[in-house]
């Protein structure tokens, strides 16, 4: 019994130490801003740009108050920032993920470098402001860079809350989210009618419905686009992992299926960033490395999608 546990603890401890070491190695923000190889894209309508790969927190950062797993997540965040990442996305619906992010930001002293994206998720809009404040407290940031209405829950009233907060300077940008390709008609209507800054939706090499209307509309309206579920919560990777990468993947320096898929997503000109979630430092490095030249052009993107479709 103890033997097994001690083996587990040693492994976790090592991970924690690695995370701490990574945090110590974290370059200062001004250095990160000059990191030449991590590509960024301008947020339409806003005078700022974001690295093409961000960090999601669904499931992966919901670790409660487990000290070993909190340190493991801090290690992931350290590697993310060290590779030039900025946008981290979470939600009150993600259990303890917000608190985990806050722990990591505090440990890494990274409050100033994160682009903090969170959500409002309540069917009782009167509770919205208190929920946002609780979220902000978990993160430990002075204010959010982006707040989104999660999955269009009570979207009219919740968006009113967010717009009022933006007007008051309590949040910088506002948006809406959907996932799994659901409610695209509603999303389209809101994108046309509401003064949004961002829309978050599911887009990857096999879930491409957004290409038809939502991505062109985002360009027309000048909205940033965050692509969630880039790997369909790992299912896409599992489906492809025993298949060989095509030789021509080398043309875009895609060394793994994860990089192949990410490069497809972020090379769409209307996508601002993709937000893969992970529990592993090596995966976050691999993901950020996908946000480097070369990216596929339109012809190669078609070829990539056809190839995956054929597998």
């Amino acid at each position, binding site marked *: 019994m103890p033997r097994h*546990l001690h083996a587990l603890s040693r492994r976790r401890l090592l991970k924690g130490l690695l995370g701490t070491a990574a945090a110590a190695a974290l370059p200062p923000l001004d250095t990160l801003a000059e990191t030449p190889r991590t590509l960024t894209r301008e947020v339409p309508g806003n005078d700022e740009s974001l690295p093409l790969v961000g960090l999601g927190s669904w*499931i992966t950062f*919901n*670790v409660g108050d487990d000290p*070993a797993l909190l340190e493991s997540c801090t290690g992931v965040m350290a590697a993310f920032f060290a590779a030039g990442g900025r946008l981290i996305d979470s939600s009150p619906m993600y259990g303890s993920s917000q608190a985990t992010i806050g722990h990591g930001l505090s440990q890494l002293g990274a409050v100033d470098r994160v682009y903090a994206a969170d959500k409002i998720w309540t069917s009782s809009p009167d509770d919205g402001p208190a929920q946002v404040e609780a979220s902000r407290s978990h993160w430990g940031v002075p204010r959010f860079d982006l707040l989104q209405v999660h999955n269009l829950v009570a979207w009219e009233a919740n968006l009113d809350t967010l717009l009022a907060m933006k007007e008051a300077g309590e949040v910088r940008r506002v948006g809406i989210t959907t996932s799994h390709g659901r409610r695209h008609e509603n999303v389209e209507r809101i994108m046309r009618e509401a003064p949004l800054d961002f829309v978050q939706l599911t887009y990857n090499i096999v879930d491409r419905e957004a290409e038809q209307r939502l991505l062109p509309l985002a360009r027309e309206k000048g909205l940033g686009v965050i692509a969630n579920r880039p790997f369909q*919560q790992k299912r896409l990777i599992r489906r492809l992992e025993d298949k060989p990468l095509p030789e021509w993947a080398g043309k875009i320096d895609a060394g793994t299926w994860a990089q192949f898929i990410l490069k497809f997503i972020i090379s769409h000109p209307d996508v601002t960033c993709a937000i893969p979630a992970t529990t592993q430092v090596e995966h976050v490095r691999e993901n950020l490395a996908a946000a480097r030249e070369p990216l596929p052009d339109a012809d190669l993107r078609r070829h990539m999608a056809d190839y995956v479709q054929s597998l």
Partner: protein
Amino acid sequence: MSEWWTYRLGDFLMFSPRVYERLFVLYNQALWPAQLLALALGGAILFLLLRPGNTGMRLVMVLLGLAWVFVAWTFLWQRYAPVNLMIPYVAPLFVLQTLLLLGLGTLKSKLNLPAHWSVPRSLGSTLFVYALAVHPWVTAFPTSRGLWGAEVIGLTPDPLAIATLGIAAMANPASKAWLLMVVPALWCLISGLTLLALQAPLAWLPPLAVGMALVARLWPRR
């Protein structure tokens, strides 16, 4: 709400297998050596079940009732709720189960066990013995948790629910026993779905316990 049918079971899972495993490991480490006391009390209940009597049955109901409220607070509320947003809605049901056990099992109690061995009593006893003596091992060793990850009766919800189902499945009168089965059966189904979403190999165990309890409960009594 037809959209709900487009979700997969895994879409509702909000934590990873490693978090679920560590939940039990850290819990057991924090409570040690309470596991020994819980197992001893479980053994005492088994002793009372093998020698059915009114006083003994009242004591069984009190111990079970205390266990349900203990698990609600120390495991569900303090440990599980931070990573599972559904738990705050489930924990009150555990308190309700405590009230049912104390109320139906002790106040003017007519709840009793059959004096002679029968199919219902055999199935019910099997469920209890499984929860007490087998469940800790099957949750510890076929998984990567190790013994610290064992789910022990009286401290964690699955074996407690299975044990309660076993007792309620063989108890009389049926009207009271059915009431005592609702919350444990509901928990076993929730737990089974959670384990299924986690792709745990033993996800079928809690629903199987419900099935066995139903067979025992519905078995014709002479």
